[in-house]
């Protein structure tokens, strides 16, 4: 799967969970800068991504993500 496609699926998941139709997100967006991002939505998004891509993250990975691109890296490495 191409990075752009992964990004677009991530955006879909995030917008459903944060209940926002139009969010501006690109690879260099900082996770903490996303409107409505908090610890609970973070967990919902992680679980949403795990289900969508049928992967499982390691617990140590979560804390290393700073940017959306880190998230995409993590997904790509498990494809």
């Amino acid at each position: 799967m191409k990075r752009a496609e992964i990004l677009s699926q991530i955006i879909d998941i995030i917008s459903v969970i944060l209940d926002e139709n139009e969010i501006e997100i690109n690879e260099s967006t900082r996770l903490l800068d996303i409107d409505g991002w908090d610890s609970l939505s973070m967990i919902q998004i992680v679980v949403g991504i795990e289900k969508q891509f049928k992967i499982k993250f390691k617990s140590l990975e979560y804390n290393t993500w700073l940017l959306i691109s880190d998230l995409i890296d993590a997904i790509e490495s498990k494809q």
Partner: protein
Amino acid sequence: MIFESTHKLLQKYNKCPEEIRGGFATQTIERIQQITNNLRSKVNSTIIYCNFVEEDDCVFGQFASKVEDSFVFQLRKINYQLQEFSLITSGFYICDLSSIQNLIGRERYWDAPIYANTEMVLSLDAMPYFANSVLKIINSLLGRVKKCIILDLDNTIWGGVIGDDGIDNIQVGNFGIGKVFTEFQYWLKKLKQRGVVLAVCSKNSDDIAKDPFINHPEMVLRLTDIAIFIANWESKPENINTIQKKLNIGFDSMVFLDDNPYEREIVRQSFPDITIPDLPEDPALYLDFLASLNLFEVTSIANEDSQRTNYYQTQENFNSTLESFSNVNDFLKSINMCAVVRAFDTYSIPRVAQLSQRSNQFNLRTIRYTEEQLHSLLKSNEWFTLSFNLEDKFGDNGLIAAIILQRIDSFTLFIDSWFMSCRVLKRGMEDFIMNTIVNLARENGFEKIQGEYIQTEKNLIVKDLLSSLGFVLIPTSLWECKLIDYVERENHIKLKT
């Protein structure tokens, strides 16, 4: 609401010195008792306690069941003793988390990486199940319970079509997949014994539909189990309307079970409030499917529950005899009604609490009482209580009304609660009760009685109760009745002493 996770419990166990691990369960239950007592000394509230999902630390393997101080052994003991504790502690309910894990499995219930990062001890998947379980307990405490199941017959409680296949060829018992229907009927029967009323609504001739109930040797359900039996060729919504009128309960407290999607849809369109599960096509799945919906949550049971079907049958006899009289007064005189009046006591409190939680229509202020709260009323001379049992020549109607009165000052008695079963409407019970309240007020030196109507969606039938009993509206928007003006209200109910 108290939720302590098994995972935290395990950490406590881990820190527990080896030589006292055998007493871990007892110690935990004592702690729960203390928490309960502490809470109760500060607030008079209902407590919902979550039990513990099973977690095996696999230190002893399956041998743990044979080792008293293993975590698994102690954990199961805690869950068991928690049940025993709730048995003797009113207003203390258990939210059965353990059964959620049984249903969805440990793998879905517990998400270790999420826990490691967030301390969340339930997976996101388990959350809705948990929320639903808590909600069901609260709904039940608020009186939103299912009181009646309306049953179709053919291919719902037996396999086959009685009108076509005949009594020898319907599947129940050992014939065909009959055991599936037998087990289904046992479940219905247990619900009936617990107080859920069963009604039949079937497109059949009456005699043919009743035949298996009377003559089939392997039927579990018999005619005595069915409060209202309607088999004819009218539409189901029409018949369900009749059932609702006879039982006098809300549509939202009814469940309709029918194998036919077409009938379900018609009923659903006519009565959106009735719960209508979409039964699976395969009858073998009926029971598991219905169990997964957990429709029959309850937070109080009383000795009278097993008699409820009899009460409705009594009521049915009452109604059909009533139809044959042209003058209602003559009729009421002829049926020898007598009432037993008592203050609440240990025996009546479970039923009074239940009536308080179940009565939605004839309920003046719709204050819900738990057993615990009722007990506390008895301890104070600020409160007066009255319960009413009614008998007539058709049988015993059981405890059908309760009154809670509060001393406001030395002149004024306030009707805090008046709730009554709708089974006994239009019999003069209201008049009898009012006379009883007045007598109690006079004996205790009061000069006036005040009351209040608090409107809900469902209690319109008591909107004019107080004015019809001679109360007048006073500026505080309360209703008042001066004892000096009170004229004894006529009725045909005798006091049984």
